[in-house]
């Protein structure tokens, strides 16, 4: 039996606070119709002050463990762009708060592709027999890094977390991660990111007046790349799976923008209604968007056990990727 990493649990968490488009329109030059027509987003969840990414990650992680009916794992990987602080990593605190003991725990930084990179990393730990079971969490609190005056990013991003438990199993089992395609292009690093706060431009008293602490994104420039990269990665993993594109029952793409989701489907000649769409209610939740969209698609009935599903994402870095699998019989919590 070929060893593989198998999805055995799925959990999600959204902070309770909701910000609607009308709420944004009260403080910014925007309105519900403008946001909906450009992004497809109607509202997003925003964490209360004092709530950090670890708080969301712990909630999603707890639910994923319960969904998998397990109390222990050998490793925790947290995909995030918004760790609790620059150093140390957030994952060890998450593991500790989940009562997982002295397990391997680290953060993974691949922006909106982080969850897919984390799946690939976890699958590697399992393949190498370093771990039998891994908790993979995507959690982000973008509300903390957005420019309060930037209507384009504030309309798009929301906070949230999602997690899966991967266990060692057989490649033929439902839920076994199939072919994974991961890629990057650092030549586009300036298109999505935060300029200040790192080693190139640290926050110090003498540089603070020139610092830009906010997340910036060249939306229109990355739109085309996002569509073409996700479509290409999807084709790659479909081909490596021995499937044909029409075999794909559900496409769970990073929830960046409804128009991107539709353009990806069009490029692949897939009906648009095969795309999981969750962003209308939660916005773009960065590393959390794929597990959140999976849970939503499973609860709506769009995604059912046995379905052929492709996960695909694109984000800062630039990074992108895709993964194919047959959906297992798991209950999302």
């Amino acid at each position, binding site marked *: 039996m070929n060893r593989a990493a198998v999805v055995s649990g799925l959990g999600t968490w959204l902070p309770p606070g909701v910000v609607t488009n009308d709420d944004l329109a009260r403080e910014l030059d925007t309105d519900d119709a403008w946001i909906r027509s450009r992004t497809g987003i109607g509202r997003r969840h925003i964490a209360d002050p004092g709530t950090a990414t670890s708080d969301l990650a712990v909630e999603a992680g707890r639910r994923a463990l319960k969904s998998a009916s397990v109390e222990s794992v050998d490793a925790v990987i947290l995909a995030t762009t918004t760790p609790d602080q620059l150093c140390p990593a957030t994952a060890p605190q998450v593991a500790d708060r989940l009562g997982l003991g002295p397990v391997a725990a680290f953060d993974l930084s691949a922006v909106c592709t982080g969850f897919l990179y984390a799946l690939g990393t976890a699958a590697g730990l399992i393949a190498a027999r370093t771990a039998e079971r891994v908790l993979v969490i995507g959690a982000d609190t973008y509300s903390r890094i957005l420019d309060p005056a930037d209507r384009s990013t504030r309309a798009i991003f929301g906070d949230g977390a999602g997690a899966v438990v991967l266990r060692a199993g057989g490649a033929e089992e439902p839920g076994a991660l199939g072919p994974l395609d991961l890629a990057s292009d650092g030549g586009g690093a300036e298109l999505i990111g935060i300029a200040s706060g790192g080693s190139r431009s640290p926050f110090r008293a003498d540089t603070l007046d020139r610092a830009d602490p906010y997340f910036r994104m060249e939306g229109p420039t990355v739109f*085309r790349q996002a569509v*073409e990269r996700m479509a290409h990665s999807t084709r790659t993993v479909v081909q490596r799976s021995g499937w044909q594109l029409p075999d794909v029952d559900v496409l769970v793409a990073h929830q960046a923008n409804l128009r991107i989701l539709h353009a990806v489907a069009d490029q692949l000649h897939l009906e648009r209604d095969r795309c999981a769409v969750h962003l209308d209610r939660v916005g773009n939740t960065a590393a959390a968007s794929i597990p959140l969209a999976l849970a939503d698609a499973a609860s709506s009935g769009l995604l059912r056990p046995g379905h052929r599903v492709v996960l695909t994402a694109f984000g800062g870095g630039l990074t992108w990727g895709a993964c194919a699998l047959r959906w297992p019989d798991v209950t999302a919590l």
Partner: protein
Amino acid sequence: MTVYDRLADLLARSFGLQRDEIEPDYTFAELELDSLALVELTLAAQDEFSVALSEDDLGAESTIAQAAKVIEAKVVEATAAA
């Protein structure tokens, strides 16, 4: 069907325009296509005509007839190379 007609059909289909609202000397800006819509049109036109198109090929200020000419030249080039 000419490249112009196919492009006009694609525009109508993709952006909910009436086919008879579209005239050869209209620019994309006059049809109220914003920057995202031009990217969407570029991607859809690549698919429709099976040629590679850059952002500049379908610019906001080019007319639909001009864009059709650019696409037609690429189609001819691709056919000659094949």
